């Protein structure tokens, strides 16, 4: 009994200890961690404590009986694997898949030659072999698992991000390939197969025509998963990609109908004409029904997203759930689930994107990509595993003939169909295109799963083996050779760049132009109907499905807003304006500003003074205000909600842009060619530069070994010297003070003490950086007290102070806020700064302070004049 009490007290002590620690952690987390960490931590702590509580409860339960009947001691550690087995194994599989994926990309040489899908299948084979070796039963690629869990994410990802424009422009061709092509493949393969089986006799004699056709139907469909896996890697041009991929998506309806049809018939054994007619009707029901189900769910999803502005967190889930429901609902009626899913994604996307917040949009994107990539990996691994696991009936004739037939029928189908299609296409398909379309017809896991679904037919294993062989052949041989072939044939690749605003303007312009020309011709074609549809969408649909003002936004404007947003984000993230289009600002393209700069060169000293004062006051104001922004706020807040903050973003961006211009006007001499760069070197006593009455503030001052070490760092370092919040300071009221630029320019010309900055060429230093450094003219003040130095670098935006002693390693803060370890020595009157990245030497040459910074092959010389 004593023992038990002791145990109990030990337990409760442990619990209280645990909970104390947890509470402690909890509280600490509350104060220090971000919300995400907090929530995960709290849920973790809750789950742990509840777990412990249940343990405690269990121990108390067992205590009851132990009092009466003497039993063995309380089990301190219990092993119950069966309890968690399923989720544990699932996680293990996913983990394996992900680790493999991770591994391949660490070996670039392999992943460049062999497509990922091949490697994954090999891994699957190995794992299957291993499982078999240890005597376990390897799991096969179950059809429920495949069709209900693994396939939908991939298709949704494909459907949601389907490039609409190329798809609709080529929808005719795609449909012909998907429907007629698949039918042809199925019947040709099935028919010839039957003939071969009859000729061969023996084991194959028992295969009847319907089974052969069923087999043909299964093996003829191009597989979206395999196509995606290979085509994503070869970056082929948009047209070919959408042709092959679109076909693989849309042939689903044909495959579904043919599959069920032949399965039914081969069970019954006879086919009547009525059956044939019904099959055609069935095809339309399956495909159009699937599309309709998808579209309905898509509209529902879009409509729901209209109201989610107060519960942003769950927004992404709506997209996933509605799509999944669309897929499942279609499957209930044996409609084409794939088409339904695609219709849902395509319908939903434009409206959802307008409604959800930017964060949700990113979440949707990432989740879709993550799920589809996990699914894809698992599918290929399972394909490998099931190959090892499954029963096989290898028949050379059957397998070889299947592979050959697949190739032949595909090539014949594509060539024949292209001949007809080209009569209708404006942009004809060339021989190269045809080859890639034919060669890209990969088969994959869908065929395998359909084969797996077959009733226990006598020929099932024979079929499955042949299907697997075809899949392996296409994925390995075609998948691996398609990339070299694409390069050999010099097939046009996809352009990688993001769409520019000019392209968008002209796309729109072209649409309207072509619609207009069609109108002039009196011909109602493609563009005319598209225009009609767009107008209908704009006037009725958008109003219902998109919340707020954005429903009225024309496409061009929303594109522009998105672009602005992206740039603003880039800027905030990188902490600079380096990604803005080059260095060109509005002044370069604005004739007005330019002319004003030229026409207003003379402003009275008094007026100039006044402007300067105003400017200075404003600078300080913004500075103070901006200091209260933490970096986190800047990152978090503006993107919390795109709708609300778009204007703010734009404003902020404008400010940054303004500031850039501003720093320009304030610091750069107008006639740059003649005047070298300007920098003031002064003592801290004359801090009144902007307010001083006399422009010529050259004073007789003695200068110690002067240095502007820290900004030299920022030149050579990757990070630009200005951070966004500093940058914005100058921008305030830029507009209000429109005339000032001239003044500032003018002022500079009147002859500041000048320093020279020259760049000794180094391609590694970005042009931007050099420019930035040129524009910022720091005022350096150096104080010496024995071996101790204090260097203060002042720019209009920021003051940076560093103290160090000679010969000691000190931490130095650069202009951009980063810290460096640095040792300073004195050598023949020169100050030598040494870090692991660069060396900087400063020396006084008469009136000049010359600073030489060397980093690798790059060298920067900066001369400062004494003030």
């Amino acid at each position, binding site marked *: 009994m004593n023992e038990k009490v002791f145990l109990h007290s030990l337990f409760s002590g442990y619990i209280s200890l645990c909970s104390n620690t947890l509470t402690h952690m909890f509280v600490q987390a509350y104060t220090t961690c971000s919300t995400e960490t907090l929530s995960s931590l709290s849920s973790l702590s809750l789950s742990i404590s509840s777990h412990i509580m249940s343990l405690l409860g269990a121990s108390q339960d067992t205590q009851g009986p132990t009092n009466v009947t003497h039993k063995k001691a309380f089990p301190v550690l219990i092993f119950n694997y069966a309890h968690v087995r399923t989720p544990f194994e699932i996680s293990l599989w996913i983990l394996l898949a992900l680790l493999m994926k991770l591994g391949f990309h660490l070996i670039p040489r392999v992943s460049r030659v062999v497509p990922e899908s091949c490697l994954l299948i090999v891994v699957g084979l190995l794992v299957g072999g291993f499982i078999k070796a240890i005597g376990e039963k390897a799991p096969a690629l179950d059809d429920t698992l495949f069709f209900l869990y693994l396939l939908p994410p991939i298709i949704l990802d494909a459907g949601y991000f389907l490039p609409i424009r190329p798809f609709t422009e080529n929808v005719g061709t795609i449909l012909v390939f998907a429907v007629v092509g698949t039918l042809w493949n199925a019947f040709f393969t099935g028919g010839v197969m039957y003939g071969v089986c009859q000729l061969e006799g023996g084991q194959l004699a028992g295969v009847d025509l319907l089974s052969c056709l069923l087999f043909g139907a299964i093996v003829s469909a191009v597989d979206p998963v395999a196509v995606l896996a290979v085509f994503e890697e070869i970056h082929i041009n948009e047209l070919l990609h959408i042709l092959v991929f679109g076909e693989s998506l849309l042939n689903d309806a044909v495959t579904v109908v043919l599959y069920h049809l032949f399965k039914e018939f081969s069970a019954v054994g006879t086919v009547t004409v009525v059956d044939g007619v019904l099959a055609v009707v069935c095809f339309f029901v399956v495909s159009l029904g699937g599309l309709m189900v998808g579209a309905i769910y898509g509209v529902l999803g879009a409509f729901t997203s209209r109201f989610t502005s107060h519960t942003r967190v769950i927004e992404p889930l709506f997209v996933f759930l509605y799509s999944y429901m669309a897929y499942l609902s279609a499957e209930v009626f044996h409609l084409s689930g794939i088409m339904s899913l695609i219709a849902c994604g395509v319908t939903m996307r434009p409206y959802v994107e307008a409604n959800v917040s930017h964060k949700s949009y990113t979440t949707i994107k990432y989740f879709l990509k993550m799920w589809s990539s996990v699914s894809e990996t698992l599918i290929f691994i399972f394909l490998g595993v099931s190959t090892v696991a499954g029963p096989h009936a290898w028949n050379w004739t059957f397998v070889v003939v299947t592979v050959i037939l697949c190739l032949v029928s595909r090539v014949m189908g594509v060539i024949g169909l292209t001949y007809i299609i080209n009569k209708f296409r404006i942009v004809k398909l060339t021989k190269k295109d045809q080859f890639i379309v034919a060669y890209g017809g990969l088969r994959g896991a869908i065929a395998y799963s359909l084969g797996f679904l077959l009733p226990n037919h006598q020929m099932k294993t024979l079929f499955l083996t042949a299907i697997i062989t075809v899949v392996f052949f296409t994925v390995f041989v075609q998948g691996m050779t398609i990339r070299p072939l694409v390069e050999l044939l010099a097939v046009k690749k996809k352009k990688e760049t993001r769409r520019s605003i000019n392209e968008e303007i*002209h796309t729109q312009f072209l649409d309207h132009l072509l619609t207009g020309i069609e109108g*002039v011709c009196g011909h109602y074609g493609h563009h005319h109907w598209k225009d009609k549809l767009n107008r209908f969408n704009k006037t009725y649909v958008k109003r219902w499905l998109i919340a707020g003002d954005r429903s009225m936004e024309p496409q061009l*404007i929303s594109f522009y807003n998105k672009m602005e947003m992206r740039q603003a984000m880039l800027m905030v993230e990188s902490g600079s304006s380096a990604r803005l*289009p080059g260095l*060109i*600002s509005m002044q370069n393209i604005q004739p007005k500003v330019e002319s004003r700069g030229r026409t207003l060169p003379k402003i009275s000293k008094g007026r100039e003074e006044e402007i300067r004062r105003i400017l200075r006051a404003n600078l300080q104001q913004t500075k103070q205000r901006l200091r209260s922004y933490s970096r986190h706020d800047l990152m978090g807040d503006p993107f919390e909600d795109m709708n609300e903050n778009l204007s703010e973003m734009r404003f902020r961006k404008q400010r940054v842009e303004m500031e850039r211009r501003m720093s320009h006007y304030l610091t750069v001499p107008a006639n*740059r060619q003649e005047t070298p760069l300007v920098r003031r070197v002064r003592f801290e006593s004359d801090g009144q530069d902007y307010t001083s009455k006399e422009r010529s503030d050259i004073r007789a001052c003695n200068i110690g070994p002067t240095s502007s070490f820290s900004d030299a760092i920022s030149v050579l370092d990757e990070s630009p010297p200005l951070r966004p919040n500093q940058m914005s300071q100058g921008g305030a009221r830029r507009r209000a003070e429109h005339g000032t630029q001239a003044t500032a320019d003018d002022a500079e010309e009147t002859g500041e003490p000048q320093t020279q900055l020259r760049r000794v060429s180094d391609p590694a230093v970005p*042009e931007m950086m050099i420019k930035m450094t040129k524009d910022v003219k720091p005022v350096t003040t150096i104080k010496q007290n024995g071996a101790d130095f204090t260097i203060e670098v002042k720019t209009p935006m920021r003051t940076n102070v560093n103290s160090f002693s000679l010969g000691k390693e000190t931490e130095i803060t650069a202009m951009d806020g980063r810290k460096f370890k640095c040792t300073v020595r004195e050598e023949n009157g020169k100050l030598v700064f040494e870090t692991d990245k660069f060396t900087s030497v400063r020396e006084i040459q008469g009136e000049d302070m010359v600073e030489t910074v060397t980093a690798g092959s790059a060298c920067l010389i900066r001369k400062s004049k004494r003030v």
Partner: protein
Amino acid sequence: MGASQTRTEDIFQDLSDKTGFSLEQIRILHKRFRQLSGDEETISKENLENIQALDKNPIRNQIIEAFFDKRNQNDGEVGSSVEIGFEQFVKVMCHFKPPTLKMTTEDKEAMRREKLRFLFNMHDTDNDGTITLDEYRKVVEELLSKSGAIGLEAAKAIADAAMLEVASINVPHMEPDEFYEGITFEHFEQILKGLEMESRMNIRFLDVDTSTMHCGKSQ
């Protein structure tokens, strides 16, 4: 009557040789031309303005202007004509011909330039060889003219952003006091490199003549 019949046929044949349209296409266009002009020899701006299909088109005026722009006739003249005849009409339509399979890369490149030139001329209203900021703003304004107040407001910003982009792509390093005059044709080509103009700027109707359509349907 028979003589005039053959005369028109000759004209058609001549036009067909010049423009590369098939006789069938020329005939269809001629029919439409007659319909638009009200059976006259020439078409005026009013005729085109009466087309209903153009009513809702935001760039209607520019499209109509393009038909009367002498630069699009490729005979070295500039300015705007008051009326155009059938030949001029066909020549404008010629810019919307799709490329054929037999074309070499150089031919395609030439076609592309020619199509781009047409667009460029539409933007460059004063024919000084550059699209200035004002001209570009006008283009975007027209494009958004059917979107009400938001459109006009945004048009300027969009045009400015677009111009900035052109400048930064083509003249990456500009001194602050330099001035980007406007988009030259070379720059215009450069920025629209990504749009496959030769395969996009075309009208389906001009491509399918009825004979092949027939044959296609019967299959």
